């Protein structure tokens, strides 16, 4: 042992070789590693994506699309895409909730008032009662990078069928759109599409130009579909308002003429009114901008 200038007593390293004290150190290192491992295990458990049955809220043993065969899968990611599908598609038919994906990450900022802990986020899955092979997913939460693969495994499974068509709707801020024009001159909101190689139908809007890229869960879904040769298309709405907004949600309207959504939206006028009410109801009163 040695004393430093500041009065600390520190253990001096011994160059003579291993001492009896090394066993204690080794024990301490093992204990710390065990604790670290335990913390990491708990964190991993907390960040696990769980797929739950609707009625019983018990976990599904197999992936969602293994349990429920699907020919059309429409995924809405983000509040504007979710509002659009809720107003135009879900309002036009009878949809039944079949399950939900429950997850937690640091982006889940809302707190559970009763238990004083961050609430978990949900992605909810529905199928059309009149045609149960048509699936819809509404995902308003953020799925973190480490959770995306779990989400895909739990939803699509490890060996998905190729005879379905996937359509993804999402939004991105217009400042992420790389172009030689100034963002002020862009007619936002506007749509761009990105599709997998096996998707043969025409897109309802221009394709996404290079060097723009897609991020987060939509990118994960598209990559997954590309690898498994599933026909999939992503409709990306670039907007200058990321919160729930009527103009942005309505920018998805051209997608209603696509093969996936054709026939699913019936009363457009009534749906537009529903969307207006939805956006007004959720309008956060902010006085920062006028």
């Amino acid at each position, binding site marked *: 042992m040695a004393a430093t200038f500041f009065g600390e007593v520190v253990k001096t390293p011994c160059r003579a070789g291993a001492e009896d004290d090394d066993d204690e150190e080794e024990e301490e290192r093992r204990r710390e590693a065990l604790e670290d491992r335990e913390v990491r295990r708990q964190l991993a458990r907390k960040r696990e994506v769980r797929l739950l049955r609707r009625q019983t809220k018990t976990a599904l043993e197999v992936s969602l699309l293994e349990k429920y065969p699907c020919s059309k899968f429409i995924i809405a990611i983000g509040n504007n895409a979710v509002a659009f599908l809720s107003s135009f598609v879900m309002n036009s038919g009878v949809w039944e909730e079949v399950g939900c994906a429950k997850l937690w990450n640091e982006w889940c900022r809302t707190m559970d008032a009763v238990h004083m802990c961050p609430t978990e986020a949900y992605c909810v899955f529905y199928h059309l009662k009149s045609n149960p092979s048509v699936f819809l997913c509404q995902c308003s939460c953020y799925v973190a990078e480490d959770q995306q693969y779990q989400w895909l495994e739990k939803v699509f499974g490890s060996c998905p069928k190729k005879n379905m068509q996937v359509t993804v709707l999402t939004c991105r801020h217009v400042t992420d759109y790389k172009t030689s024009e100034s963002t002020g001159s862009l*007619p*936002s909101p506007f749509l761009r599409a990105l599709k997998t190689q096996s998707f043969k139908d025409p897109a309802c809007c221009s394709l996404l130009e290079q060097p723009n890229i897609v991020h987060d869960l939509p990118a994960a879904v598209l990559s997954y579909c590309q690898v498994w040769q599933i026909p999939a298309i992503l409709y990306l709405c670039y907007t*200058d*308002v990321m919160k729930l907004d009527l*103009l942005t949600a309505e920018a998805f309207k051209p997608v209603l003429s696509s093969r996936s959504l054709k026939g699913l939206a019936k009363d457009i006028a009534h749906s537009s009114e529903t969307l207006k009410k939805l956006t007004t109801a959720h309008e956060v*009163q902010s*006085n*920062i*901008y*006028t």
Partner: protein
Amino acid sequence: MASRYDRAITVFSPDGHLFQVEYAQEAVKKGSTVVGIRGTNIVVLGVEKKSVAKLQDERTVRKICALDDHVCMAFAGLTADARVIINRAQVECQSHKLTVEDSVTIEYITRFIATLKQKYTQSNGRRPFGISALIVGFDDDGIPRLYQTDPSGTYHAWKANAIGRSAKTVREFLEKNYSEDAVSNDSEAIKLAIRALLEVVQSGGKNIELAIIRRNQPLKAFTNPSLCGYLEVLRSLHRPIFSDFAIRRNT
């Protein structure tokens, strides 16, 4: 590259951008739409009113403000920044009147506001103002003026312009529909402003506010009931024009 040069206002990027100024332009787009039209004998400002909270006093949420008896301004962007600029401009208008015994010209007060904004793009420790403004009025020579300023401190005169959310759509509409003949009549200039706003205001006429200045007359604000007459006329006469433009815009 942007992330290395966008933190300090006084730093240019290698390709000549002042990112903080450009980001301030994005703040302007978060404000609701404002349209300004310069007629032959009238200047019109139309704004999309944002919805007010239930318990909030509507009179305290204003986008159109008078800077003097003969000049008024509408803004889009950060509310607090607008308040500061409006206060300074109002004081400058009175100070000018007391000093030289003449009212400010529209160009003078616009240049004052633009100079103030430019100063804030060149000082460290301060960020640019996050507002664009449309300033309208009549000079003593009886000529109507419409100017626009933006966060960079530039200002230009316009015949008609729009700022704020969906400004590009409104500007395209104005480019197609504005003509000197169309605005020679006061009523037609007002209708043009309303039609331009209705291109982007989803909830119809109830969220529109107008202000006009006629030659040798004070500022007049239109409340919603006053607008109803114009809206009814527009609905009965101009419905095909609305639908046609809306269809062309969405394709």
